[in-house]
């Protein structure tokens, strides 16, 4: 059955921790993690609630395969209502906290209310206790991790926590676990801090033993591991080059958003790419990349562990940044680099370290700095606004200084911390915010990859690549190649990817496996672990159910079809170079048909028939 069938309900207002049985009727419909926690959230909170009020809840949830030997089976998600978008938020992270929660005997933890004073949750198997975090408030993620390990004298403790940015109200703060893995998007860390919850420290020694059919499980997971090992992306590209393998590829196809998405190709891409991370530096003869690293149970191991050039200006007299730490993934390298026009690999690595150290999303941060740079260029903000920073495109100093300010909630960092939508509105140029539903875009320009335009516009958590990564099909040809420059067939493609991804995100597995795996590989693993007869068709239908549940939550929260759109720049200003030269994103050709195949009204609302078919 793989579920522990137990959830921990933590009422922060009352200071209580109570176990309760998992609702197995819901588990049969929503499996776990993203789907099941969204069901709990939708049932338990008013979607119109202020995201930063005690009425919002925050759920940390594992999937049934979390903590098993299935490859990548260590994922967990943080589900809440987002303060950045006002929509549903679900941020997924690897590292080692999800498996530890499961090993301790819990499928999920629901946090409700707000603690009168800063606290952290200490969870050792059945023992759950809220402890004072007065001494941790105002500390970074790294300091908090260190202090908690020392306090409990347990090197095997796993810790997820928020940094200073979250405490200071940065709207895109994440929950960081294991020093540098992040449930990074949509401000889930901001919600955690708003509840005066600093950290969750877990030690689980019970293990995961309740797999439905061990023999079938080993057979299915072994076969699936062989598929990952034999695939050129998951078996070779990702371990060697990480997600950064995409930098040069996406730049060549003309879908690399550059300088706040004014351009679609970045002349400095090869200086901040995966390949650049392998080139030995002059100062110490070592490359940026130290090694690749795995999250729990992952046989791909795409994680980057990096060092900064010891002679680089960012770390002069700062020994705490001289060791190896979580390095640049493609999204961070793009947002901190191409989108700001900065091609200094070490400055980007430093900014990325800061994002981890104080727990904020490098995508939203980088894109907000890019918007600020454009505001600066057109004179809408000046050095007086920025507190003396010359906010010019291409300035590494502006980028790294901005990161330091957002980390601590100081100076102009307080404005950058609210995201590009609020920043550009404040200074009178809302069109310069490259966001959907208030969340910043990731690293694929939808003029060069048409399906991604529909993906962003309809994503339930605001602009996001991880809700339907049609780049797989449109650029990489997985599972089948489609033309990135046409809209033909894209509504169907986006819907299929959205539904399948929602299913994967509810299982405990990593979505990166889907470079190699389809639901045909994933369903047998879930089915061997869980009761319920999980066929690929059932998984896909469940994904569709989850998608509609999230949609319904957003509609109830007050969002409408008018929010399913893209910034004017992407709809009106054609790409200037590359294969997509002359193209805009043709969202209007895709959206109506997408609503239709979703079983939604022309206003984007699920019809009564759809609601009943999906048993919502």
């Amino acid at each position, binding site marked *: 059955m793989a579920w522990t069938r137990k959830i921990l309900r933590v009422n922060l207002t009352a200071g209580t921790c109570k176990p309760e049985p998992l609702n197995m009727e819901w588990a049969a419909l929503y499996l776990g993690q993203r789907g099941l926690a969204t069901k709990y959230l939708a049932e338990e909170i008013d979607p119109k609630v202020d995201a930063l009020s005690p009425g919002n809840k925050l759920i940390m949830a594992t999937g049934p395969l979390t903590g098993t030997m299935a*490859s990548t089976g260590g994922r967990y998600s943080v589900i809440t209502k987002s303060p950045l978008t006002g929509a549903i938020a679900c941020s997924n992270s690897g590292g080692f906290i999800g498996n530890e929660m499961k090993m301790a005997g819990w499928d999920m933890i629901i946090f409700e209310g707000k603690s009168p004073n800063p606290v952290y949750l200490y969870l050792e198997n059945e023992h759950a206790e809220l402890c004072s975090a007065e001494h941790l408030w105002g500390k970074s993620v790294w300091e908090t991790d260190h202090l908690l390990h020392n306090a409990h004298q347990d090197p095997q403790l796993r810790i997820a926590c928020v940094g200073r940015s979250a405490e200071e109200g940065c709207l895109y703060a994440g929950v960081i676990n294991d020093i540098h893995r992040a449930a990074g998007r949509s401000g889930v860390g901001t919600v955690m801090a708003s509840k005066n919850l600093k950290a969750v420290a877990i030690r689980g020694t019970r293990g995961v033993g309740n797999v439905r059919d061990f023999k079938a499980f080993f057979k299915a997971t072994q076969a699936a591991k062989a598929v990952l090992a034999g695939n050129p992306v998951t078996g070779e590209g990702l371990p060697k080059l990480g997600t950064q393998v995409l930098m040069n590829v996406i730049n060549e196809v003309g879908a690399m958003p550059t300088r706040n998405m004014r351009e679609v190709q970045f002349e400095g891409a090869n200086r901040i790419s995966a390949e650049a991370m392998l080139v030995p530096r002059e100062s110490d003869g070592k490359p940026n990349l*130290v090694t690749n*690293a*795995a999250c*729990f149970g*992952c046989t791909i191991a795409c994680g980057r562990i990096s060092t900064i050039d010891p002679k680089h200006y960012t770390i002069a007299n700062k020994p705490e940044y001289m060791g190896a730490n979580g390095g640049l993934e493609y999204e961070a390298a793009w947002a901190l680099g191409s989108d700001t026009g900065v091609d200094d690999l070490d400055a980007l690595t430093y900014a990325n370290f800061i994002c981890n150290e104080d727990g904020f999303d490098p995508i939203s941060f980088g894109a907000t700095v890019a918007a600020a740079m454009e505001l600066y260029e057109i004179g809408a903000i000046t050095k007086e606004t920025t507190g003396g920073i010359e906010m010019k495109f291409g300035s590494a100093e502006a980028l790294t200084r901005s990161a330091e300010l957002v980390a601590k909630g100081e100076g102009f960092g307080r404005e950058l911390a609210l995201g590009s939508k609020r920043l550009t509105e404040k200074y009178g140029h809302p069109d310069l915010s490259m966001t959907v539903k208030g969340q910043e875009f990731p690293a694929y320009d939808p003029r060069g990859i048409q399906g991604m335009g529909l993906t962003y516009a309809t994503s339930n958590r605001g602009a996001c690549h991880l809700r339907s990564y049609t780049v797989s099909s449109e650029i990489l040809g997985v599972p089948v190649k489609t033309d990135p420059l046409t809209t033909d067939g894209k509504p169907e493609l986006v819907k299929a990817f959205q539904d399948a991804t929602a299913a994967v995100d509810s299982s405990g597995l990593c979505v990166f496996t889907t470079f190699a795996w389809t639901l045909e590989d994933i369903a047998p693993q879930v089915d061997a672990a869980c009761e319920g007869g999980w066929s690929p068709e059932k998984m896909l239908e469940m994904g569709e159910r989850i998608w509609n549940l999230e949609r319904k939550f957003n509609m109830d929260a007050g969002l409408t079809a008018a929010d399913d759109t893209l910034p004017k720049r992407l709809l009106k200003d054609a790409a200037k170079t590359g294969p997509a030269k002359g193209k805009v994103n043709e969202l209007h050709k895709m959206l109506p048909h997408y609503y239709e195949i979703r079983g939604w009204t022309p206003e984007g609302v699920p019809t009564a028939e759809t609601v009943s078919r999906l048993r919502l």
Partner: protein
Amino acid sequence: MLKALQLEPEKCTGCLQCEMACSYENEAVFNPSKSRIKVFNFHDEGRFAPYTCSQCSEAWCMHACPVEAIVINQQTGAKEVIEDVCVGCKVCTIACPFGTVNYNSDSGKVIKCDLCGGDPACATACPTGAITYVDADHTGLARMKAHAGQSIPKN
């Protein structure tokens, strides 16, 4: 041919598949906290290292045991804990210079690597070849070959 576990830390990514395989083989549960092999993360250096019992010939643990609960498996050379005999006194955990014998509070006995009777589950599970089960007399062969390659004059 006697075989031994060969550990090559430079190939390890820290995924813990070995710990899950070990705990499942021995405890029928995925539970790294009950694994006989452990992977250590040297975070600031960006290095991972798997580590377990190297099956010493003159095993400290075996000599220290007051009730002769640790015996040699003649087939594999492994020093195995006879659970029924072990009294959980933990003297072996003190005697072992490498820390690879540990107490299991759930069973009240000690646990250590027994090479899974000659088919170590950790080596099978390792996705990167950081743990292999090879000729005990030649665990250095691969490393030797790599260095030998460097000794050939380049044209």
